C-alpha cells in the first residue's frame, strides 16, 4: 500500500516538473520559431519562468463569475486533471519504472484519458458564458469523433504484439520498432493526428480557438483552477507522446543510454514536434475537422486494420 502511495507521489512530482518543463519548452520553441528570445530574465535563459508563473497563479484571486453552475464549474478542473494523473500509472518509463503494469494497460490508458472530455464539457456548461458553452460543445464532438480512429490504430498495435500490457508491447518491439513496419507507420500517423485532436492542440484547437471563442471552455477560469487546466493540457501532451513512444517507437529501448533517458528523449521529441506544429499551422474549422475524422481517418484506419489483419491471419 505504502509503495503505491510513494509511486503516486512520484507521479505527481513528475507531472509538476514535466508540465513546467513543457511550458518552458513551448515558450522557447515559439520564441525560436518567431525569431524572438522568449523568457530570459528568471534563471538561466528563463528556466525558472514557469516557477514564477506558478507562484503568480497560486497567489491570484479565484474569481467566481456570476450565475455559474457551481458544482460543475468547481469540479471541472479536477475532472480534467485527475484522469491525466491516473493515466501515468501504466506508462513504462523504463524496464523497472512503471507504477502498475496492468494486463489491460492500453485499454486502461485510452479509457482514462477520454474522461477529460467530461471535465471540459462541464467547464463549458458551468461557466455561464456563451463562448465557453460553444467551446465545450465543440470539444465534446471533437474528442468523441477522434476517439474512433485513435482506438482503431491502437488496436493494430495490440494485434501485432498480441498483448495489452504496456511492458509487453515494449518487449514485442525488441527486434524493431513498430513504426518501421509500413502498416504501423500509417497507424502511427493516424494515431498522432487523432491524439493531437484529443488534446486540443493546433491545428485542432477549436475548443479554445482564441480568435473565435476568446479562450473557449476555460474563458472564465482564473488562478489555480486555470492552472489546473493548463497543467492538464501540457501533461496530456506528454501522455499522448509517451503512449506513442511506447506503442510505436520502442518505448524505453535503445542502445547505450539507460531506458529512462531514451523514453524521455523520445517522448519529449514528440512533444517538441507537437509544439513545432502548433506554431506553424493554422486552425481547421469545426466541420472540416469532423469530416476529416469521419471521412478520411476512420475509413483509413478501418481499411488498414482490415488489410493488415487479413495478412496477419494468413
Amino acid at each position: 500500500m505504502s509503495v503505491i502511495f510513494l509511486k503516486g507521489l512520484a507521479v505527481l512530482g513528475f507531472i509538476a516538473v514535466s508540465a513546467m518543463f513543457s511550458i518552458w519548452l513551448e515558450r522557447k520553441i515559439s520564441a525560436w520559431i518567431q525569431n524572438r528570445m522568449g523568457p530570459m530574465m528568471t534563471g538561466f535563459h528563463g528556466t525558472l519562468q514557469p516557477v514564477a508563473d506558478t507562484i503568480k497563479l497560486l497567489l491570484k484571486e479565484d474569481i467566481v463569475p456570476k450565475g455559474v453552475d457551481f458544482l460543475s464549474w468547481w469540479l471541472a478542473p479536477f475532472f480534467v486533471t485527475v484522469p491525466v494523473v491516473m493515466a501515468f500509472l501504466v506508462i513504462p518509463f523504463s524496464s523497472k519504472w512503471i507504477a502498475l503494469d496492468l494486463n489491460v494497460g492500453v485499454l486502461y490508458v485510452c479509457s482514462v484519458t477520454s474522461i477529460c472530455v467530461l471535465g471540459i464539457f462541464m467547464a463549458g456548461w458551468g461557466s455561464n458564458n456563451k463562448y465557453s458553452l460553444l467551446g465545450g460543445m465543440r470539444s465534446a464532438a471533437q474528442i468523441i469523433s477522434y476517439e474512433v480512429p485513435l482506438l482503431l490504430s491502437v488496436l493494430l498495435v495490440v494485434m501485432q504484439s498480441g498483448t495489452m500490457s504496456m511492458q509487453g508491447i515494449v518487449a514485442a518491439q525488441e527486434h524493431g520498432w513498430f513504426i518501421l513496419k509500413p502498416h504501423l507507420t500509417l497507424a502511427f500517423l493516424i494515431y498522432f493526428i487523432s491524439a493531437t485532436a484529443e488534446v486540443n492542440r493546433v491545428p485542432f484547437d477549436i475548443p479554445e480557438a482564441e480568435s473565435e471563442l476568446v479562450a473557449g471552455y476555460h474563458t472564465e477560469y482564473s488562478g489555480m483552477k486555470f492552472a489546473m487546466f493548463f497543467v492538464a493540457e501540457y501533461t496530456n501532451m506528454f501522455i499522448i507522446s509517451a503512449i506513442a513512444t511506447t506503442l510505436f517507437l520502442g518505448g524505453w529501448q535503445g542502445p547505450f543510454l539507460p531506458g529512462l533517458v531514451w523514453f524521455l528523449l523520445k517522448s519529449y521529441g514528440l512533444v517538441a514536434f507537437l509544439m513545432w506544429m502548433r506554431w506553424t499551422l493554422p486552425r481547421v474549422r469545426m466541420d472540416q475537422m469532423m469530416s476529416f475524422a469521419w471521412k478520411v481517418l476512420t475509413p483509413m484506419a478501418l481499411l488498414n486494420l482490415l488489410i493488415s489483419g487479413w495478412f496477419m491471419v494468413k
Partner: protein
Amino acid sequence: MMIRLFTGFYSILKGFKVTFKNMLKKPVTLNYPIVKKPMTDRFRGMVDLVPEKCVICYQCIKICPTAALELEHKVLEDNKTKTITKFVFNGELCCFCGFCGEICPTDAIFLNKMYEVSYFAHKDLLTIDLMRKDKYKHVDGGESS
C-alpha cells in the same frame, strides 16, 4: 482524393520547413531591459527645453495642435528683457508631433530621446515644469540631454 491528401501533406511540410529555417536564425529582438536600442537622431521623445536659448516668441505655443504647452512671461523693469515665469508642458495632451521643435527659431525647445516615460502620479505628468533642470531625472534613464 489520395492526390489531394498528398499535396495537402506536402504543403504542410513546406510550412514546417519555413518555421524550421527560422528556428535556426538569430533572434531579431533585444534582451530589452538589459540591452537597449539607441534612438535615431530625429526620434521624438519628451518635450524638453533649454531655458537660456528661449526668446519667448510664442511660436511653439501657437503651433501646438493640442495646446499642451503653457507659457507665461513678464517684462523686467528695464522694459526690454523678458523672462519666463511659467513654462509648463502637459505630457498627457501632447501628441509628440514635434511641431514645437520644428518651429523654434533658436532650437530652445526640442524633443529629446526619452521613450520610457512613466510617472507615479497622474498630476506629475500633467504639469511638467520645463524650466527645471532635473525635470526628467526621476524617470528611469531620463537624462535631460
